[in-house]
């Protein structure tokens, strides 16, 4: 992979800045995520952290319903998009099933142990200027960067 720092992978040109379609769609999609978090807070008083919502999905107890509905909404969004517009998941990254299982275990246990993921800490936590969430977000971004670097430079991009 050629090292061309600063150039977006989409090859649509970095010179267009925020007008780059990927960046504009990122802002718009991000706004939808932020509004969704407010909707859940307004109606249920809960923080839209997907790992926290999913972590107690299989709890017995009266607190399970809204979690199931939220996760069903996530999947339904994927199904609707797939039916009406196009694929929701595309990846040609060379990753073995074993690597995906390991990654899934790390993400599942890590987000529960760390009390949050990209949404709970990244979006909701940073929105209320939580110091804990800032530390968590900086940590998972840092280890993510190191991991991607290690996979590329030590394992040749294949895992």
């Amino acid at each position, binding site marked *: 992979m050629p090292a061309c720092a600063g150039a977006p992978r989409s090859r649509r040109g970095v010179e267009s800045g925020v007008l780059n379609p990927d960046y504009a769609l990122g802002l718009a999609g991000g706004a939808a995520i932020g509004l969704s978090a407010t909707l859940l807070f307004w109606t249920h008083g809960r923080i839209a952290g997907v790992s926290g919502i999913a972590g107690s999905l299989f709890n017995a107890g009266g607190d399970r319903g809204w979690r199931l509905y939220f996760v069903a909404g996530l999947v339904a969004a994927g199904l609707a998009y797939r039916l009406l517009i196009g*694929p929701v998941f595309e990846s040609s990254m060379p990753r073995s099933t074993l690597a995906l299982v390991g990654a899934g275990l790390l993400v599942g246990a890590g987000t529960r142990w760390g009390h949050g993921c990209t949404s709970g800490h990244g979006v909701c936590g940073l929105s209320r200027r939580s110091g804990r969430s800032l530390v968590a977000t900086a940590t998972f971004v840092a280890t993510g960067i190191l991991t991607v670097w290690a996979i590329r430079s030590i394992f040749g991009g294949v895992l």
Partner: protein
Amino acid sequence: MSGLSSFLAGGLFGVGLIVSGMTRPEKIVGFLDVFGAWDPTLAFVMAGAVLAHMTTAPLASRRPAPVYAAAFERPHTGAPDRALVGGSAMFGVGWGISGLCPGPAFVALASFELRPIVFAAAMLAGMGIYRITRRDDTGIAADDTCG
């Protein structure tokens, strides 16, 4: 109506993830690839999400209580501890390997492709392992208020 509002919140969340490209692992790995072909899209997604939530959440908390619940959730407070940093570090490694985090993993199930199904199953197993270990520690399941 309570269930519907939660379903709609999940749906809006999912649409946001798809539109912004966050269900494509290459976009995530591209963001984390700061020493290579860096793709800043995820930073725009975070900026859009934080800005939208920051400006609208205070309007919601003007109410004495949420529409369908007794009280607003109080997130964890206090100094960052070892669990927060250790868990987040683990999460980052899995995120870097797969390009998937919990939200996109659920949305990507709709593709019926093997990768997201394997990943999501392992992720739920990882969450289950955490619950078991915590139960041994304290006799009760860990609370899960924050994210």
